[in-house]
């Protein structure tokens, strides 16, 4: 092994479990940020290791350990997890708290994101996808990130929250800064801005409620018939803002990048446009292979896990892309099989914190792909385009994707 030893790690970490790994650092020669994770596995990193980077944290590399990290919230908490640590960090509701407190807002939000609820949103999504794609289809090219993948989820957020379209640029800017800025002061100001916008929005909805999600959250009453604490309401809004934008943007970018370079896959989807179940099987495989998020957990008490000593407040990263290509669970894990039969990927997590927006996220991608292929059946990467840069971190992706047709 060629890993460097870092002597500065805490004393409960044995030297042979230390690997120098920075999940934000994607070297220029690496064309796909996911590869930094698969390199670790290929180079034989221990299945549970500690890196002193980014404040120091553990990394799990086995499917079953990652699943346990998701399920066992008594050991692996979702409360105050950011890596590197950011303090104070807003407590996202309900994703940032553990059961049983987690159940309060989970129950409130869940009915708005069930498959049934998402089915009712489909027409609106189709319409927006169609309008957006038609706006540039005639020009024969686009930057998929700037022109589609970043706009569509933010537009969806505005629609669900009953906000006017005109505010799209403002929300795009807030989201862009939130996901890309590394400057501590800019980040702090951005958080304040997001909370100020959410505050204004919820106040307006409290006074003039509509049938949107923001109105439902702000007018909901707890078991004693009282409104929920204002801070919790804001924290719910924050979660929905943060969770549904960058993840969908980057998953879409990965999917379109793959389709642009794989004519057989475009044909596969085109032939199944009117066959929802076959379409979904293929989408599920793209969800498996293009898992963009690396989730964080915090250890609640000193304990031994799979023979490794973990200490209270140690942070852990659960890299979904690694779980999804664990050869002990998936046959030919590195190859993309659009007809894959058994596909227990963890792209949306498992256990009580499973991504509540997963059905909406999938529907956004399905609808986008259907509308896109109807209008732009063939497309490819622009040859002269500088590749755009890629980034690692808790959500991985590309800053641009130039397409031609």
């Amino acid at each position: 092994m060629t890993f460097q030893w870092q002597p500065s790690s805490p004393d409960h970490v044995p030297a042979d479990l230390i690997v120098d790994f920075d999940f934000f650092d994607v070297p220029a020669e690496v064309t796909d940020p996911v590869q930094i994770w698969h390199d670790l596995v290929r180079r034989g990193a221990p299945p549970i290791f500690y890196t002193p980077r980014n404040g120091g944290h553990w990394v799990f590399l086995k499917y079953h350990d990652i699943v346990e990290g998701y399920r066992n919230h008594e050991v692996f908490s979702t409360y105050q997890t950011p890596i590197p640590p950011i303090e104070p960090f807003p407590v996202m509701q309900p994703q940032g708290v553990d059961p049983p407190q987690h159940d309060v807002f989970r129950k409130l939000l869940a009915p708005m994101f069930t498959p049934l609820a998402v089915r009712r949103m489909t027409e609106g999504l189709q319409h927006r996808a169609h309008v957006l794609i038609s706006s540039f289809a005639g020009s024969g090219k686009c930057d998929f990130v700037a022109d589609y993948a970043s706009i569509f989820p933010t537009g969806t957020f505005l629609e669900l929250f009953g906000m006017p379209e005109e505010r799209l640029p403002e929300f795009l800017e807030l989201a862009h800064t939130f996901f890309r800025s590394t400057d501590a002061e800019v980040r702090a100001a951005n958080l304040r801005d997001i909370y100020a916008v959410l505050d204004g929005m919820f106040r307006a909805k409290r006074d003039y409620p509509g049938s949107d999600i923001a109105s439902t959250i702000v007018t909901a009453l707890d078991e004693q018939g009282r409104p929920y604490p204002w801070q919790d309401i804001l924290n719910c809004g924050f979660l929905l803002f943060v969770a549904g934008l960058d993840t969908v943007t980057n998953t879409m970018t990965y999917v379109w990048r793959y389709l642009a370079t794989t004519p057989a896959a475009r044909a596969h989807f085109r032939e199944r446009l009117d066959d929802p179940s076959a379409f979904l099987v293929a989408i599920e495989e793209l969800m498996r292979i293009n898992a963009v998020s690396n989730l964080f957990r915090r250890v609640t008490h000193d304990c031994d896990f799979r023979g490794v000593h973990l200490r209270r407040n140690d942070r852990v990263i659960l890299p979904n892309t690694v779980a999804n290509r664990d050869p002990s669970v998936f046959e030919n894990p590195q190859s993309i099989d659009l007809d894959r039969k058994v596909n227990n990927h963890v792209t949306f997590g498992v256990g009580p914190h499973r991504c509540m927006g997963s059905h909406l996220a999938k529907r956004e991608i399905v609808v986008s792909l259907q509308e896109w292929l109807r209008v732009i059946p063939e497309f490819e990467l622009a040859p002269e385009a500088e590749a755009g840069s890629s980034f690692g971190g808790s959500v991985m992706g590309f800053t641009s994707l130039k397409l031609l047709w």
Partner: protein
Amino acid sequence: MKVVANSSLCQGHARCEDLCPEVFATDAIEGKVVIEKPDFPAELEEKVRLAVRNCPEGALRIAKGVAL
């Protein structure tokens, strides 16, 4: 043959509904599985088995004959 769900394990992934809507649905409250046809016909066996194997929470099980 009969398919049963452990609803305390189910987290509402809806993979079962996607793969075999003839037998599985999800509810409007939490999005958890509802088995609409627990005694499914033999021609659906393969689809049901696939749905069971694709449940990420291991919440579904096929039981032979016995009423549960």
